[in-house]
């Protein structure tokens, strides 16, 4: 089989998870099948380019203003396999943000119609897309993102011992959707002798979060994190209190590092937990605080072991799933080609 040419279109290189997720295409088991390139685009109110690619993968969320781009992408690249990865929209996001549900869903339907496959990044997200009938269920696939092990699989596990404070960690954009404000409120209800919190990241909400933390000595801000492994090394337990989270790369990274995960009920988070942590209603700081206060050392030790185990097959499965996706693309392209050849053959005879 000839190597497929694939172009990834992305509009926002600030989004942590999306950009990290692009690394998977450099994996040797995929580069053997596919030559992948990333191309920055601004899809709003513009026409799409003609691309020299067998497969085109879009990573930006569709919108009314990008519909002309998507339509022209389809028209100008009639032989390419078009795939969309939905990194952003979720059921929680829709419920919190969208004013006209009907209008939003119509936009999704129109946009997704241009594609040969639409990839959800979690089962939670896929369930919502199916429920609102945004996409033909045959075209909908689920692929959990993979951002590489980043040394997390080798990180020594946390040591939980009675009497030692539990070091909580949270990391991400300082944005309202991440729910760090709830976590800081919860910290106020927890004994400072038992819980410490370190928050990694940056963003618009930084001033508000620092103000909320006030002069609490057991809350630290670690700033922008370059070395992910050394950040997780500073935490025993990772909290992901997000209000929306299509998948939640942080929970996957924490599990790989053997850190128990305390996550909200949002979208793609609960399916990641298994025995590696607990799912908590994070809409109320008091609930989060009492869940944290209730964790025993023995429980945390078990969760820590289960956390690491729960990622053992992740890389293999994700690579396999991508191989299968490109394999489907290759087959569809071959089918398309032979159909058009036999069609031109018939025309030649009739002429």
């Amino acid at each position, binding site marked *: 089989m000839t190597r497929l040419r694939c172009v990834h279109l992305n509009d926002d290189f600030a989004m942590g998870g999306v950009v990290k997720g692009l690394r998977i295409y450099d994996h040797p088991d995929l580069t053997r099948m596919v030559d992948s390139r990333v191309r920055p685009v601004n899809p709003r109110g513009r026409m799409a380019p003609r691309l020299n690619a067998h497969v085109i993968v879009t990573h930006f969320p569709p919108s009314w203003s990008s519909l002309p781009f998507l339509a022209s992408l389809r028209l100008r690249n009639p032989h390419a396999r078009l795939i969309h990865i939905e990194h952003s929209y979720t059921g929680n996001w829709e419920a919190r943000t969208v004013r006209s549900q009907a209008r939003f869903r119509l936009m999704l339907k129109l946009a997704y119609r241009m594609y040969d496959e639409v990839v959800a990044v979690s089962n939670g997200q896929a369930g919502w897309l199916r429920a609102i009938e945004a996409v033909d269920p045959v075209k909908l696939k689920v692929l959990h993102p993979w951002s590489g092990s980043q040394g997390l699989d080798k990180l020594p596990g946390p040591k939980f011992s009675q009497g030692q404070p539990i070091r909580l960690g949270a990391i991400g954009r300082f944005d309202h959707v991440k729910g760090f404000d709830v976590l800081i409120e919860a910290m106020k209800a927890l004994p400072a002798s038992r819980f410490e919190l370190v928050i990694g990241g940056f963003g618009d909400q930084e001033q508000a979060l620092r103000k909320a933390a006030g002069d609490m000595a057991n809350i630290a801000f670690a700033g922008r994190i370059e070395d992910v492994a050394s950040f997780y090394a500073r935490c025993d337990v990772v909290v992901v209190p997000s209000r929306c989270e299509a998948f939640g790369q942080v929970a996957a990274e924490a599990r790989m590092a053997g850190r128990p995960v305390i996550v909200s009920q949002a979208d793609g988070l609960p399916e990641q937990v*298994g025995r590696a942590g607990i799912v908590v209603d994070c809409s109320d700081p008091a609930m989060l605080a009492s869940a944290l206060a209730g964790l025993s050392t023995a429980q945390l030790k078990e969760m820590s072991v289960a956390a690491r185990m729960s990622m053992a097959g992740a890389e293999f499965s994700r690579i396999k799933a991508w191989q299968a996706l490109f394999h489907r693309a290759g087959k569809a392209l071959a089918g398309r080609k032979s159909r058009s050849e036999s069609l031109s053959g018939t025309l030649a005879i009739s002429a």
Partner: protein
Amino acid sequence: MTSPEKISVIMPVYNVELYVAEAIRSVLDQSHDCLELIVVDDGGQDGSMDIVRSFDDPRIRIIRQKNRGLAGARNTGIAHATGTYIALLDSDDRWAPEKLMLHAIHLRSNPDVAVSYAGSRLIDADGRPLAVAMRPRLEAVDAAHILKRNPVGNGSAAVIRRSALDDVGFAHPDEPARTCWFDESFRQSEDIEMWLRMSAGHNCRFEGIGGLLTDYRIIGGGLSANIVRQFETWERAIDKARTYAPALIARHGNAAAAYQLRYLARRAIQLGDYAFARALTSQAIARYPAIFMEEPVKSLGTAGAALASALLPGTMMACLLRNRLGKAAAA
């Protein structure tokens, strides 16, 4: 072209967190991809099942049960299987990627073969291949060969035709609703018991194909007491076969016991219990002296190792074995 046969892979899982990921990867990597992987959670306590669930593939099915042992877990798996062929894989072993494809071709083109098997490499705890391999007899295999040498070799080598398997199923004595293929009253030697029942009791044909398609893991450690128990259960399997194939056991029983004792002597050498190895070897010779004529090299090798161990210092012996057995040899 006909569509490929579906193969059901039966994998019991019981406290194997160090190895189970490799076993699963080797299944999902098979070039014959029309398969289902039935993982039977046999009620272990470690993180093995967290690892199993970390693999995200629609071909994996997980069935949970209270602990029943290997035979019981395999039976549960077979009961849930929907494939034309049944492949057994122990969760500490692994396969070459082409294994199922080759067995599927073999079984498809030989409708009279019930059990298809192949040789195995031996690997140590870290997955490194050892110098020794299992290269069993492949053709013209009859019940006497199965009794004496068990050419199937290990629990991860056989691919069985479902229709043949169903000929040997029976109701569990205490749970009539439960079908058994493997006899659950055996906690060891459950393989040879079933192979004997299939070949001597039901005339099933066994045939091997070339290549070393299974990596069979030899894990160091264990106790000599287990070797004694292993021989006792093996003898119980032979006693059971005597009820339906008396002539076969009368004719080949002693030879089979000698081969089994020689095999156990090799296990004892591996464990570093050389005195026990010598005792087993002399018992083997007493039961069936002709073992030297039938397989002189292997028999002399085992006897030689057992004797050398009496003369050489222990450290030198361990060193010799490590060269051959890698990490699987006793330290």
